[in-house]
């Protein structure tokens, strides 16, 4: 860092408010859409793993193996098919969420007390209705706990996408490094952290509203 350069030049922030807002929006999209896609994949997969226990270990191993592939390597693989687009960032991030979301869906379904499942069957719920109206709603708190972890990690991972030019606020981090100018780096880092925290807080709030019945138990994080 150049001598005399302050950590933050507030003027720069003031000059870039519009641009910062734009990249914040992009960052949110890149970070959260993969969580949504991950959920769409994990719920049926998790249900399958719950129903047929033998499916679970290989599925979980596969998800963990995917998670262990460095993001850089995954970007390079997908670049060949999807180019330098947002999709190239979102596909790996989606895959990463699976290693958190699948086990949480499975645990969530397993958290349905046996007497409740039996009662539902005995009341005359068909299997499909039982899953949709009883088991999945009861799994929500555990699933949301997984979503929180996935969302926070996904939001912070987006910045890596800057390697292929799609990193949301990560743009400012590489720019700052290139220009040896700390203000954008710090600003982007703080914004990313704030995004993660606010998203997490909103998810907690959403869960409270969605599952007022779970309040007594203290939702697992």
């Amino acid at each position: 860092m150049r001598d005399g350069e302050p950590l933050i030049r507030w003027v720069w922030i003031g000059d870039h408010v519009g641009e910062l807002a734009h990249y914040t929006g992009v960052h949110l999209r890149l970070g959260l859409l993969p969580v949504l896609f991950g959920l769409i994949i994990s719920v049926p997969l998790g249900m399958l793993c719950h129903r047929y226990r033998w499916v679970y270990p290989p599925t979980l191993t596969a998800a963990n193996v995917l998670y262990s592939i460095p993001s850089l390597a995954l970007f390079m693989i997908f670049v060949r098919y999807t180019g330098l687009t947002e999709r190239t960032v979102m596909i790996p991030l989606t895959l990463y969420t699976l290693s958190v979301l699948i086990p949480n869906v499975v645990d969530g379904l397993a958290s349905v007390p046996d007497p409740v499942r039996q009662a539902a069957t005995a009341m005359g719920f068909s299997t499909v209705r039982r899953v949709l109206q009883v088991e999945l709603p009861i799994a929500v708190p555990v699933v949301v706990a997984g979503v929180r972890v996935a969302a926070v990690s996904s939001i912070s991972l987006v910045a890596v996408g800057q390697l292929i030019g799609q990193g949301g606020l990560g743009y400012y981090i590489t720019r700052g490094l290139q220009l040896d100018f700390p203000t954008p780096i710090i600003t982007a880092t703080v914004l990313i952290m704030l995004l993660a925290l606010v998203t997490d807080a909103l998810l907690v709030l959403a869960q409270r509203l969605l599952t007022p019945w779970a309040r007594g138990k203290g939702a697992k994080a």
Partner: protein
Amino acid sequence: MIRFDAVSKNYPNGTTAVDALSLELAEGGLTVLVGPSGCGKTTTLRMVNRMVEPSAGTVSLRGQDIREVAAPELRRGIGYVIQHAGLFPHRTILDNVATVPLLLGWGKKKARSRAAELLELVGLPATMAKRYPYQLSGGQQQRVGVARALGADPPVLLMDEPFSAVDPIVRGELQAEFLRLQKELHKTIVFVTHDIDEAIKLGDHIAVFRTGGKLAQFDTPERLLAHPADDFVADFVGQDRGIRRLSFVQASGLPLREGPVLPVTAPVADARSLGEPWVLAVDAARRPLGWAAVADLPPGGTLADATLAPLGHTFALAGDSARAALDAALLSPSRLAVGVDAQGAVAGVADAYELSAAIAGASAGVTTTGDAAGAGTGDGTGVPTSGAPDTTPGGVQDGTAAGAGAPADGEAAPEAAAPAAPAAPAGQAAPAEAAESAAPAEAVAPADPADPAAPARPAAKLTKRDAGEGGPAEQGGVGGGER
């Protein structure tokens, strides 16, 4: 109503949960399945609503093989209550209770108003409707469980150890209320428990299972206590079955004698002249005041001047059982139990020995309200029915019915009994009642090992039933099972 025909359940690993079970449960009756763990009682219960499918044999409900009905549809017509209530944690109490009506497509408004009625029926305040299960105590949750099972007013209720997860005091309350509810509703109930006391308290009939899914005995509670089919059953019902069966003998039938009873105003000389060690002092209305020990009486004056020992407790001729009478005798300082009438006036006294003789006779059908009325029941006493106007019909009917075999009991019995019982007081429902309790027992002749030993089946007049549970529903038990 519910009929098991040679039903077995075997698992691929070779275990047999239920072994060739044949059983017929009467409509409107409360049948308890009881036995040690692993005896197949819960499996049996779950075969009724197809939660478990039998490996062999058929289960039929009102004459229809239950496999002919799609499982979810069948289940909506059968209430189900389980040990930990199994309430849906994500639904309010009201919506929990409305579950089955909603499944049946009643519409939200109608389902909820029905649910509100049911909450009231099981004694829960309306303020609870909007709460979630976690906000309720275990006992309250169990009430909601019962309400939910009654949702669409199903004729049949299956209950799998519904009261065993709550503390003994709450359990007692729930049991009492449950009996009250059943008196109103007359559901056909199958109730599983491992607790023989609960079985005896609640059941009209009890099926005792032994390990390996075999039915050991199917009988009325008092018969089970009086005539356990074998050592296993005797052991299972416990050491104190002799005492417990006294609960089924009404105190009103016990022989009482005048005894050493004197008004408290009587001179002590009168007390001495009776030649008894204790004298019971009574007030002007013959209400008991206490026992006076003759040896400790003052030299002169009246009994009022004597120190009276407390009574222990008395027993009421109307309402109390022989068990209370015997207990009164054991606790009394004079060893004499004091029987009182409805006004609290002394009707007479008896000691434990006299009571036990009467009670032993009761099982052979001698006393007026004994728990068994048939002559020669194989009880060992062999005392023939006599001098018991209001149970004579029961005894006669029983012999007849047992000889005639099962199906038509309910109808045939009163006719058969009537001519033989000219002494039966008018207005006394003895024949009908006797028939009622005898009929379901007959239904399972093949499964009842006690049968050959005791061909004349004692009829029982259950204390529980006397309190007003109607005969009609029961009478159709066997013959009307198909309706």
